[in-house]
């Protein structure tokens, strides 16, 4: 393949994905701008003073801030234990602590609802407890983020770095060692994890919708009112508010992503590269931290399963009995547009489609980034930042772009079953890229250069060098993609809510939205959530197993 031709392919693959992200957003924004009668910074002021939205920004920021603080408090000691000690079951503990992050957010919401609900601690009637449950749920969901950011950094600090400090005047007390060693080394990774946690809590939708339904965040405000916007001459003020919400959210998220980019650069300069391997001691006195953490992680998941069998007595309110009625109703589907079997099949079809498109696209983009890195590291960094845009443009914003930009422009698209796959591909591809990037960066460049001197073609090099290395991450990326697609809620809820193409996560929302008292609403929703959770966690478990055994790339 000629060099110019290969450059074109690289440029095309990156360009097409950036377009896939930006084009619907651009069209959506254009329509909302039209319906808002143009842009004005006064919309932001209106947003803060309007009856409908005056509380939204404060609620969004405050809950995200508190969630971040709690996540750090819980996550840091766990990251420390996992990094500093080695024991037989450490990989299992690490996998369990990562489970919340891959659990669909709607399942997490159901889990916490089951805990604080009438069949659980019965705290659901109090708004303050609901708020606390939301903060806990966000911390629960994001613990893995702090662990994944901080643990590798602590692991790379050779014991001699702390030992050496003991011989120096400025390292003779534990305070000094924290001040002069641990804080300078750890703050970039802690702050990176904190910013991402803030971002995810900021853009949380399913949890806010179901745990604190009396409050709205910027994300839920945009999602809930999305159907009424983008029509010129109709609800102009609402369009302006949505535009302000969109602008505010995008600004905060882009700043967050930019800071993470800077921190990652800083991080690489503070950690020395030490080849020497060292033995870690067995953990001592950590069970007081580890056991409660594991119980905290597992309880919401178990509560979902238990909740599917707990049925409130129709005649005696407040009393519960055990039964399979929730499961029976989930299977016969008499309660919603579709039944659990159809929704499972639909979810699996979407997951397969996402894998089919996102994995090759992610692989091609990764190869393009690697090629770009060799020519211009700066350009590669810029491209990588753009490719990570879906991390900072939330699922609802992507859904909003597709809904307003495409579907209101071409109403026929509303009936196209593949439409919800689009946001799934957009959301999953950056994960695929991250998984492949670490693999490609670890391939010995000597091997490739040697192959070139032997006159091997591009395809021969791919099969003989790359394929051998990318097989494990290919499987990990596929499973991860499928899990992300299965659990995706925000965009799917916006695009597939007419009952034709409902996924499991949308089905849970439909069941829970049923008006009036019905003792089977909760158990039925929990039954569907149990199926969704089992599917997602199965994919994740296989991926983790594969990653452990074959080093399937990093994320």
């Amino acid at each position: 393949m000629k060099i110019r031709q290969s450059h074109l392919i690289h440029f095309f693959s990156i360009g097409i994905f950036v377009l896939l992200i930006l084009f619907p957003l651009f069209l959506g924004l254009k329509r909302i701008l039209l319906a808002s009668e143009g842009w004005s910074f006064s919309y932001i002021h209106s947003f803060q003073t309007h009856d409908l939205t005056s509380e939204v920004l404060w609620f969004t920021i405050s809950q995200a801030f508190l969630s971040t603080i709690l996540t750090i408090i819980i996550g840091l000691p766990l990251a420390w234990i996992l990094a500093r000690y080695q024991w037989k079951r450490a990989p299992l503990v690490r996998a369990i602590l990562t489970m919340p992050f891959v659990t669909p957010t709607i399942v997490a919401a159901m889990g916490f609802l089951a805990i604080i609900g009438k069949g659980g601690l019965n705290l659901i009637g109090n708004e303050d407890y609901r708020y606390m449950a939301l903060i806990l749920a966000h911390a629960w969901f994001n613990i893995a983020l702090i662990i994944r950011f901080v643990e590798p950094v602590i692991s790379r600090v050779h014991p001699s770095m702390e030992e050496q400090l003991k011989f120096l005047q400025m390292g003779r007390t534990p305070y000094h060692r924290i001040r002069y060693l641990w804080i300078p080394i750890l703050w970039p990774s802690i702050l990176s994890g904190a910013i991402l946690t803030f971002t995810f809590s900021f853009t949380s939708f399913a949890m806010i919708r179901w745990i604190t339904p009396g409050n709205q965040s910027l994300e839920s405000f945009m999602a809930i009112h999305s159907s009424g916007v983008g029509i010129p001459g109709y609800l102009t003020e609402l369009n302006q508010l949505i535009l302000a919400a969109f602008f505010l959210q995008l600004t905060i998220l882009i700043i967050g992503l930019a800071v993470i980019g800077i921190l990652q650069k800083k991080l690489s300069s503070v950690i020395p590269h030490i080849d020497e391997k060292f033995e870690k001691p067995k953990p001592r006195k950590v069970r007081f931290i580890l056991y409660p953490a594991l119980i905290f992680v597992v309880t919401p998941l178990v509560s979902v399963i238990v909740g599917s069998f707990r049925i409130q007595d129709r005649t005696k309110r407040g009393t519960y009995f055990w039964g399979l009625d929730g499961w029976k109703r989930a299977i016969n589907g008499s309660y919603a547009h579709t039944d659990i079997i159809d929704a499972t099949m639909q979810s699996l079809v979407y997951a397969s489609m996402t894998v089919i498109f996102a994995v090759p696209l992610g692989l091609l983009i990764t190869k393009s980034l690697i090629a770009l890195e060799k020519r211009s590291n700066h350009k590669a960094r810029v491209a990588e930042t753009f490719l990570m845009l879906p991390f900072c443009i939330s699922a609802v914003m992507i859904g909003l772009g597709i809904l307003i930009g495409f579907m209101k422009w071409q109403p026929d698209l509303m009936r196209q079953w593949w439409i919800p796959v689009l946001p799934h591909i957009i959301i999953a591809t950056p994960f695929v890229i991250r998984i492949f990037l670490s693999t490609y960066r670890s391939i010995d460049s000597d091997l490739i250069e040697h192959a070139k001197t032997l006159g091997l073609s591009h395809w021969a090099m791919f099969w003989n060098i790359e394929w051998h290395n990318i097989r494990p991450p290919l499987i990990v990326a596929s499973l991860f993609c499928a899990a992300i697609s299965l659990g995706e809620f925000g965009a799917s809820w916006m695009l597939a809510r007419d009952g034709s193409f409902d996924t499991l996560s949308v089905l849970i929302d439909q069941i829970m939205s049923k008006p009036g008292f019905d003792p089977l609403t909760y158990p039925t929703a929990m039954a569907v959530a149990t199926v969704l959770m089992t599917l997602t966690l199965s994919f994740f478990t296989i991926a983790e197993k594969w990653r452990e055994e074959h080093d399937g790339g990093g994320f």
Partner: protein
Amino acid sequence: MLELKDVSKSFSKTLFRNISFTLVQGQRLSIMGPSGSGKTTLLRCICGLDSFDSGSINLDGENIQNTPTEKRGIGLIFQKPVLYHHLNVSGNIKLGNKNADVSEILELIHLSGYENRRVDELSGGEAQRLALGRSIVAEPRFLLLDEPFSSLDETLRKKLLQETIELLEHKRIGSILVTHNHEEAELFAENSILLDG
């Protein structure tokens, strides 16, 4: 005065048994032995990073077995120089002593003008010089050197060894050098101990 009396340590096998010697302020000693003979472990026991099974270690007549590492007044230089990458050369020196005259010590270790240099830009010899300078400004009474020059080429190793000896004499710091190189051991000190594992 640093005094070891019948110090022994086992770890699945006997590492060393009944090690005894006395070292006065300003005196130098070499410890030789093949890999796995317990040289590094002995140093770690002396400075308190590892414990030993029997015997005693006294500093000026006081048993320091239960004295924490940071309070023994003994310094250690690791085989691979441990430098803190979040600090520049000057910051690394200041870790040893916040009141240190950085220019003076950099002159002593032949790194004048390196104050603001990033430590990952230093060569192997420069990094080990910096580790040595940083240990010196911490004003230890005794300094333990765990094969600090082993990764350097022979010419540089000899040069750095000579510079280290001059620096230790200048500051009157007692020291122990662990090495598996006979020539280096003889050059460093008149007295040496052989650990044969």
